[in-house]
């Protein structure tokens, strides 16, 4: 079957072409305008952030230098020639890394408990008292917006140096971040099981326990695991302000230019974080498959 392309006469084509050109031109104009606004924002920001191209060029050489120096021992030899010397503090670092993981774990679990209560209390479908919802919502927002390092600084001032302020700071931030997610999960449940429990005379706790909880538990667990991954990263730096974990040793090594220590600790952190990420991803997939089977 032969294909024929019908070309309309020029008289018909001209207005269509004009229309097409106008449409393209208006899109271009909008795009250019957006670009111009963005560019001016960037210029203002660059001035605000004291960006200096000259300093950057000088610095970028330093950057390469710095990273190659990270891989040199104090003797000037590359690190891989003497792993025992490179990881001289392995026992201490592994212990600190273990402490970091425990801080992340304790903080996440404590925060999850708080978020569990908060998530139910601020959900529109289970709580009818608007003022209560409002207060809980603002409280979660506050916990979420203030960075965990700021909480850690304040807690170090009140609880003293150590892991305790670290755990508490992570717990509060987790309560805020997870509470919001939990609340969304609870607001999306099927309300019929809850009404079923209510119709047999169950009180509010029975409604939540038997009507809502079974629907949300696997989602909660998967969000909590995701948060645990984030908190492991957060716990590695919480020591920077004196709140326990490996961050304290890392900042000392960086500040005092013990370059091979920096690379050793960073390597341990990277390995640890990757291991936790992989593990928790597996668990989350298992949880999701559990849910889809039901």
């Amino acid at each position, binding site marked *: 079957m032969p294909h024929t392309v019908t070309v309309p006469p020029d008289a018909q084509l001209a207005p269509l072409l004009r229309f097409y050109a106008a449409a393209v031109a208006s899109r271009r104009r*909008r*795009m250019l305008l957006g670009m111009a606004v*963005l560019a001016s*924002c*960037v210029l*203002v*920001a*660059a*001035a*605000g*952030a*004291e*960006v*200096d191209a000259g*300093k950057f060029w000088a*610095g970028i050489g*330093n*950057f390469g230098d*710095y990273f190659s120096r990270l891989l040199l021992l104090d003797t000037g030899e590359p690190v891989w020639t003497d792993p025992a010397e490179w990881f001289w503090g392995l026992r201490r670092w592994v212990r600190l890394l273990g*402490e970091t993981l425990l*801080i992340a*774990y*304790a903080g996440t679990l404590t925060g999850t408990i708080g978020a569990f209560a908060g998530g139910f209390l601020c959900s529109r479908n289970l709580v009818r008292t608007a003022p209560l919802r409002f207060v809980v919502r603002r409280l979660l927002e*506050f916990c979420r*917006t*203030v*960075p965990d*390092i*700021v909480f850690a*600084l*304040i*807690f170090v*001032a*009140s*609880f*003293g140096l*150590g*892991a*305790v*302020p670290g*755990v508490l700071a992570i717990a509060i931030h987790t309560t805020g971040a997870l509470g919001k997610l939990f609340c969304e999960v609870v607001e999306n449940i099927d309300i019929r099981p809850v009404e079923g429990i209510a119709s*047999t005379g169950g009180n509010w706790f029975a409604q939540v326990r038997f009507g809502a909880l079974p629907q949300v538990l696997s989602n909660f667990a998967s969000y909590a695991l995701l948060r645990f991954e984030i908190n492991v*990263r*957060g716990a*590695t*730096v919480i020591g*920077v*302000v004196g709140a*326990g974990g490996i961050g304290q040793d*890392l*900042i000392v090594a*960086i*500040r005092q*230019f013990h370059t091979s220590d920096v690379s050793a600790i*960073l390597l341990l*952190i*990277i390995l640890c*974080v*990757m291991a936790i*990420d992989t593990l928790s991803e597996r668990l989350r997939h298992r949880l999701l498959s559990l849910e889809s089977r039901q």
Partner: protein
Amino acid sequence: MSDSPADLRAAFLARRVDMQAAYPRVFSGFWRARAFTLVLAGGALAVYLAALVILEFSPGIILHGLGRLADIAVLMLPPSPGGWERFLLYLDALGQTLSIALLGTLAAALLGLPLGFLAARNVVANRLLHLATRRGLDSIRSIDTLIWALIWINVVGLGPFAGALAIASTDLAAFAKLMSEAIEAADHRPVEGVAAAGGGHLARIRFGIVPQVLPVLASQVLYFFESNTRSATIIGVVGAGGIGLYLAEAIRVLEWRETSFLILMVLVTVAAIDALSQRLRGARPRGA
């Protein structure tokens, strides 16, 4: 006959053996499923308690700390910047924080897009290159922004520039990962169309894939800008510019009223940025 729960329960208990014989599937496996949950919860709780003991939690420390925390909370009221000049100084620092967030996010997006192509399976056929890029990005992402800030301070010196570079470093990897996922999920028919019209490898990427992933990138840039205003407030703690510097300083010298004022400033800014970016996302024209 009334159907109150108590009556139903009594009726059931009377016929329990019959019921169990009639509906074996409802009654079996109940304890097995429950035991699994109990063991899991018990294990989690045991690790939790062990963690609290190892991390030296004790009722004494908690009570003492809570008491001091309450004192501090009282000292924080009312929030005050401690003078008009200092307020202007803080405002300037807040602007710096926003600048750091904006520059860091944009730099990360610009560098993350090409890296995302390298990490995407359907663009780079070389398995080794693809895997190496992914692992490299994962390593970059494992290092927290604060650590990047410390490293960049050693390279470009103290100040907001180091902060912007730190934010760009962390988010570079996150952007590249998101982009590679968007690219792998992209519709392959436009790419085939360009190929059928005789387009080369670059033309296929430019006209087949880029128009599909650019909207994803745009909305992600907004999300990241939002979360980066939060991150940018803390990198000042290690000296990388912005309001965090003053916040950490106020806490160190125990100026609690200034501390609470600075926290309030951060809260208001973050809320404003949230509202702004929500509007921008809503107003984004179709297909742009």
